[in-house]
Each structure stands twice: as structure tokens, then as C-alpha cells.
């Protein structure tokens, strides 16, 4: 018990660096340690018979990386690729996976004590995809649970 409390305090004292980006109007963040790189390699190769969430594959310096359409996972209409669209490459289970996002925003350093539990539903999106919510001055920053997003992805039809 004592250790558990200790852990919690440690977590609360932690400073989080988040790479933030927009999908639609939603400001989302991912722990920067999970982000491998951000690129604008938007020419993807379509993958037949893949789930609708899969945008395609790209050549990531000699490796083939899957690009996931984050809009589609979050239930928004599929994204139009614009000049501001980027691939945010995360590392998950030994594999590089790209998230197609609409616009990259800042890198924010926040204290983890400011985090609050995500509601079960944010703008119609299932809350289980999120880790928490930060209240910024103007808007809400929602942190993504990368593994949940990717896992939900795999099980999706």
C-alpha cells in the first residue's frame, strides 16, 4: 500500500511533454517519448482489403510503415490531405506506425497533476481512446492512449 501511494505521488509530480496536434477541431496530445518523428510523406500506397482506418503504407527509410487515419478512428469523416497534414510516427510494439493528423501544433510541457480523467464520451468519441484531459487557456487538450487507439484499430472491422 505504501509503495502504491508513493507511486501515485511520483506520477503526480511528473512533468509531461506532449506533442500536440489537431484532428478536426480536436486538440490531441501524445507523450513525446512515444513519438518517433513527424513527417509529411503523404504519398501512401493503398492496401487492398485493409480496414477503413488504414490509410496505406509508406517507405520509412527502408521500412514499411502502416499509416492510420486518425480521423477515421475517431469517427470523423475521412481526412482530406492538405498542406498541413502530417504523419506522426509512433513506435508501438516494435513497429513504427504513422498517424495521419490534420495539423501539428506545439510541444507542451504540462504537469501531470493538471490531468483529469477523460469523460466516457468526448464530442461523440469513445472515451476509452483517451488517457486524460488538460484544460488549457482556450481549449481542451486530450491525450491519446496510443495503444488503445492502435488496438481498437486492429479489432475494428
Amino acid at each position, binding site marked *: 500500500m505504501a509503495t502504491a501511494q508513493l507511486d501515485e505521488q511520483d506520477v503526480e509530480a511528473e512533468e509531461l511533454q506532449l506533442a500536440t496536434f489537431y484532428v478536426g477541431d480536436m486538440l490531441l496530445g501524445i507523450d513525446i517519448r*512515444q513519438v518517433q518523428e513527424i513527417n509529411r510523406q503523404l504519398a501512401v500506397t493503398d492496401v487492398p482489403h485493409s480496414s477503413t482506418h488504414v490509410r496505406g503504407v509508406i517507405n520509412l527509410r527502408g521500412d*514499411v510503415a*502502416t499509416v492510420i487515419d486518425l480521423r477515421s478512428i475517431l469517427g470523423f469523416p475521412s481526412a482530406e490531405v492538405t498542406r498541413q497534414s502530417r504523419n506522426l510516427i509512433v513506435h508501438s510494439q516494435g513497429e513504427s506506425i504513422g498517424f495521419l493528423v490534420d495539423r501539428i501544433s506545439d510541444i507542451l510541457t504540462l504537469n501531470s497533476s493538471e490531468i483529469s480523467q477523460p469523460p466516457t464520451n468526448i464530442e461523440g468519441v469513445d472515451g476509452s481512446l483517451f488517457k486524460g484531459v488538460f484544460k488549457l487557456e482556450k481549449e481542451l487538450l486530450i491525450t491519446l492512449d496510443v*495503444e488503445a487507439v492502435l488496438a481498437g484499430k486492429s479489432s475494428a472491422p
Partner: protein
Amino acid sequence: MDDELLNDFIVEANEHMGDIENQLLSIEESGADIDVDLVNEVFRGIHSIKGAAGFLGMTIIGELAHNLENILNMMRNHELVPNSGMIDVMLRAADRLQGLINDIQNSNEADVSEFVAELEKIAQENTEAPAEPTPEPTPVAQAEPELSEDEELDRQIEEAIAAKLVETKAKKEAAQPEPKQEAEPKAEVTAEPKVAQAPVKPAPVKKAKEKSDKKQVGPEASIRVSIGVLDKLMNLAGELVLSRNQLMQAVASDEKGALDTIASRLDQVTSEVQESIMQTRMQQIGSVFGKFPRIVRDLSSKLEKQCDLKIEGKEVEVDKTIIEAISDPLTHLVRNSIDHGVESPADRKLAGKPIEGSMNLRACYQAGKVRIEIEDDGAGIDPNKLKEKAVSKGILTAEKAEQMSDREAVRLIFHPGFSMAAKVTDVSGRGVGMDVVRTNIAKLGGTVDVESVVGEGTNIVITLPLTLAIIPSLIVQTKDDRFAIPQVNIAELVRLRPREIETRVGRIKDAEVLRLRGDLLPLIRLEEALEMVSPKSSEEKKTEKTDHNTYKATNIIVVETGQQRFGVIVDALHDSEEIVVKPLGRHIQDCPCLSGATILGDGHVALILDVAGIAAHEKIPSNEELNKEKENSTASQEESQQMLLFSNHAEEHFAVSMDVISRIDRIRADQIDSVGGQEVLQYRNSTMSLLRLENCITAKTADSKERLYAIVFEVAGKEVGLLAPCLKDIQDVIMNFDTVTFRERGILGSLVLNEKTTRFVDLFELADIAHPEWRDDEEVLVVEEDEQPPLVLLAEDSAFFRKQVTSMITERGYRVVGCEDGLIAWETLQSGEHDFDIVVTDIEMPNMDGFEFAGRIKESQWSHLPVIALTSLAGSADIQRGIEVGIDDYQIKMDRDKLINSLQNFAGSKTGNNTPVLQTN
């Protein structure tokens, strides 16, 4: 005992033992503050030795290693605190172990009881609770090969788990010196983030995962490479550096001319590097085969059978990954052969076979692949039993089973949920079916097939690629995407010119097929298979086909898997390239038609097509199913006719139906007389009129030749000869004519034969054109004014013939109702809508054939109706059967005179009082 295997064992064991002295000493030094990683390392080494020793039957080594391992296990579980006394014993035991390993031949005679006792004492003294929650199998049990194999697997899994745990722990500790902070461990940003994401999971979860993915379990990530290969690689690396320097220089000094030389040099060096690196991955297949003599020996003695194993082709080299992956399927197949294939000595004696069964395990290279055969001379597989079983299990319908060929039936063993074992034994029938074997082999890009003769034996043939890392592939394009198709799957490329499409591409049911050298191949369009476009309805497809194919050739890649062969239509072909296979991410791993991806020269990703996957996804019938389909279709929808092919002018090709030809005469040009503007041939004291094609239809003038042929046929009771300068061939031709393009009187239609457009000549019309006056002599049906002309019910499935026969007899004043098959005709007759006078029916038709149709008529109220059967060529058996069911007359389809005659005879007799007048001359 296999020396090579033993040798490997000694080398490996010595590697494990190499540092054990120091390691044990370090353990002693750290005392109660146990360095778990270190203990684990030693544990794994000893464990490997134990496993291998058990497998090789080195029971004493195994026993000693087992006891050592026990102690280490307790240490790493913190059940035991190492002290000097213990380490002392362990050191001595390790020394002894090393000694035994180096004198392996005599190791089984050695006495290690002293060490075993001491080690056991340590273990017992220091445990209050039972020493081990999961008891290790005893060394005796390891001598059993089937257990040792399972154990080997367990061991690998165990080790992999242990390794994983250590790895994760180590990383965590590296990132976070405070081991207590486990709630959200922080990894360095540069370190793999997965550490942060993957908290230490309880072992069982890992275990399940590892088990499902055996390939990754292999704890040994190292490979032994011969010095020679390594030296060569080193040299090549030097060359590569040199080439690079030259390239940099050339670029810097802007020497365009030098670039060519450097490029070709780079090309060469790169290929050599690739080849050498591949070589480092190649291993002899003997390393897998080596374990089979023992498996066979132990298993056959266990099952009280006698079996002799012969191994050939140990020296065949294949990629390491394949060696690793093929081991389990091969073991399964070998066990199966002994368990189900080879009979008991008593049974063998009864069957008159040598008591000792024989089994051959062969490997050889074949066309850039490896072929492995597992052959036994056992009881074989009874296709009928398999069929029964398949039916009882609901895998097949009884009807399907009936149609299935024996060869196909034997392949049922690969069907999921099909255990070959009549009874489940502990040897096989444990849920790992042949379907798993097949799936695993297919995953490697290989195929497996089985041949079996009941009572004589079974032969299982596996073909595998030599390597998986780099595969030669053809790059194809469809829409805007490029795909790679492995060359091993490609049989040939077919390019169809637009005008060939009509004749070469046909349809069976709703599927397109390609006619290729007399075979019918299923065709798929890649863009549709991959759902890049919405599948078109057949109507759309037809219009599209005529639309764009008028200017564009069609590329068809004929691909094959072990079971199927089919054509894939693609938009364009690119180069053939050696591609480096990259795995697909987990989100797209399950795509049915893909086996991987590769990166092309221009940096784009191309997906590698899985031909077997496409076949499964598109439900391509297997070759056997297709052949049956073909038989049906040639018999019914696409009737074939024997045709005489000839040319008039060298560039113009014609065909006539053999059925209407009476004979072919060889004549000299000077035999032809010209009488009254007509060419005739003196023939057996009479004259025979001769026709020339160019005089009757649009055709180029025949080449003048001294010797030519007269194709003789009979029209209106006269013999007529068609002059043909050059005969080509007699062929069975599928009656699928283009009746539009060359339509004129005398020509029935055209088709492409042997890549030449060939016109199909109607000899009777030809005669009609040349001698319209003959027609007046012909029988004409005379009907009283108040009477309707006789009504003919025509059943004929071929649209071409239906049209021909209809026009042929309507010309003579009959009325005709045409039906597509016997069933429709039968229904038409029954409907009572028409009052038919005569029935003309084809014999071979879908749904209801002519025999059945005629039989029904004769048993019904319409039994008075005369039935004339039309055949391509009447065989006597057919005629016999026809008479039995009541067919009144047989006529050959293309012989219209005789058909008309027959019609008139029967129709006349049936129209009662007003007998039609037959005006024959």
C-alpha cells in the same frame, strides 16, 4: 549417432560453459544480493545443455545439468541464497559437466552420482516448501523423443520468456535505477518507447503469445559463418568502399563518362555482396534431417513397427529461416508416416511386403526451389474412406464426394478439421492437423502435395523457396498501384491482342476464363480482386471489353499455386526485379491477398501479392474442379466440332466441318477440265463439279499449285468438290464463332485458331451460290393452303447451332421453336402452347440431355412425336442408347440435306392424309 549433431552440441555446450567458472564466482561474491540477470544467464546455458543432452540421449550429462539447473532456478527465484559451500559444489559439478561434454562418447558410462547427491542435498536443505512448483521432467523422460521435442519447445518458450523478462527488467533498470517505481516506468526518450508501453506482464500472457508465434522464439540469434564467406564479404566491402570513392570523385569532378563504368561496377559488387550475405544464411537441410533417424527409431519401436529410414540430399542448402520453420511440419509428417502409413509387421506380412517398412526422406533442388519428399511404402491412403469421413463430417456433400477424383480425395487430408488418424493416439491426432502443416508451408511460400496408392504407400512432396529474404518478382501495375508477384508463382505471361479477346476469353457461369492451349484457365482482374474498383456486372464488363480492348492489348499473368492455376489480368507489366521482402505491420497483416511489401527503386512501396491468398479469396476452383467444369462446358455450352482447316490464299484461313465432308481427294491441276464455264473433275467415269472459294465468297485468289485437294461433299444428291490448295490440320474446335465480322453468304462465322483468323465455311451455301439452279431440284415441302407447315421443336444448347439449324429448316418452309436445353424444351412441350409435329434435339445439353428428353417424350402423351437426334458425330453406343429411349433417327448437325430429308420423312408421315410430296430427282 550423427557426428555432425554431436559436434554442434559440443561446440554449443562449450560456449555455454565457457564463462561459467567466473559467473559462478560472481554469484558467490554478490551473496544474498542476487544478481538475477547473471543467474539467469547461467541457468539458460545449463538448461540448453540439459535439453540438448536429453535429445541426444546423453542421460548422464542431462542428469547432472538438471541438478545444476535446479539450484540455479532456486537462486533466481530467491529461494536460495548462494554461499561458498554451494558454489564450491556447483563449480566442481560444472567442471565435471565440462569434462563429460568433451568426452561425450563415454559420457553415458560416467558416474555422476556423487555430484547429483551433493546438489540434491543443497536443494533439499534450503527449501522448506516443495522445491519446485512445476516439477521438471526427469532426465529419463527426456530420452523419449516425442517428449523431448515437446520439452524442447517448452524449453524454448521458457527461455524466451526468461530472456524477455530479463531484457525488460534490464531496460527498466537502466532507465530507472529505483526498481520500485513500477507504476509508470520512465524510459529515456531515445530508448525504445515500447518499454514504457509494455509493463512487465504476467508470464502466462507472454507465453501464450510466444507460442502462437514460434518463429520468433528461437533464443539463438547468432549464426556460424565459415571464415571463407566472411573473408569474401570483407573483400567485397572493400570493393564497395572503393566504388563509392570513385563515385564521389566522379560526381565531384562532374565526369559524366566515368559514371557508367562506376555504375556497372557498383551493380556487380552489390550483387556479389547480396549473394555472399545470402550464403551466410544458407544452412544444410541435414541439420533438420539429422534428428529424424532417432525419431523414426524411437517411434517405430514404441508403436511396435519396424521402419528403416533412408535420407538423401542432406547437403541441400536453404535459408536459415526456412530450416527453422520447416522443422516442425517435417516432424509432423514423418510421425504421421510411421503412425498411419507404415503397417504393423503382421499386417505387412499379410500384404506380402517386407516386414520392415521403408521410408525415404529426400531433398533436392528443383527449378530454383527445394523439393522435399517423404515417402513410405505403407498402407497408403484410401480415398473412399476419406470421402466417407468427409461426408460424415459435413465437409463435403455426398454428391460432391461422388464426383471427386481419387487424387483430389487424398488431398482431403489437408482440409481443416480432418484428422487422418482413425483413432487419436499420443503420437498424432493431437490437434495439429495436416492443415496446419499445409498452412505453415504455404506461409513460407511453399506447397505440399500428396500422392498415395492404397496398399503401396504414400508420397508427400513439399516444395519450398530457397530463401525468403530476397525473391525475384515481377512488378505489375493495375490502376495507379504497383504490385510484386513472386516469380515462383508465375507460369507464363499471355498477351492478347484486342481481336483475340473475343475468342480467347470466354465465360463459364459468371466467371471469365482464358483458353490457353486447349485448357480453360479461370481469369481474374486484379483491380477487382483487390477491390480497387467495384466489381462490374457482366454486362458492363462486356461493353467495357469491347470498348477499350479495341485499342489496347490485355496482359494476363498465368500464376499457379500448388492447387490452382489461373490468369490475372493487369494493366501493365514492369520489370522483373529482385525485391527485398519487408514485413507488413500488424494492422494489415491479415489482408488475404498480400504476403508482404517491398520498396522499389524509386522509393515507393509496392505490396507483394500472395497468389494462394488471392486464389482463396476469389474462390478459384482447384485444377481438378476446373477440369470437370471444362468437360461439362465443352460437352454442353461450348460444343466442339471436328474441323478441317485449310488455306486458300496463303494468308487466308478457312475451316469446314468434318461431318459433312464425304472424302478428300488429292488431284493434279491438269485434271481439272473447264466445261461450259464450269470447272469439273473427271471422276470414276462421271464428272464432279468443282468450286473455288474466290468465286463464291470474298476471298483472295488461290495460289496456283500443281497439286491440290478437293474437299468432297454431297449436296442435293450430287458430289461436289471444293478446291483447297493447302490443307492444314484437323482439329477439335470449340464452336464459339464471331458471326458478325465476316458475315456473308457461305460463311458461318469466324474464330481465331492457332493465332489465325479462320473463317468457317458453309459448304451447302457455297454450293448454293455457285449453282443456284440445283436448289430447284431439291425437295420442297408442299403444304396445302389451309394447313400450317409442320412445327418443329428444336432443343439445342449451342446458340450457334440453334441458329444454324433454325435457319436451315425454316428455309425449307418449316416453323421452328428453339429451346436452350432439354428441360426448357420439355417444359415448352408440356405447356401445350404449341402443337408440335416433330422434335429435333441435341444429345449433349445441360440440365436435361437429349436421351432423357426423348425418353420422357416417348413415355408421355406425346409418344407419337418423332424425335430426331442431332449429334456432332454419332457413335454407335450413342445410337444404341438412342434407340432404347425411342429416338427415331440420328442426324449429323452440319449435314443439312440429310436432316431435311429425315425431317420430311417423319413430318410427312405424321401430318396424316396430306403427305408432303418429296420431289427428289
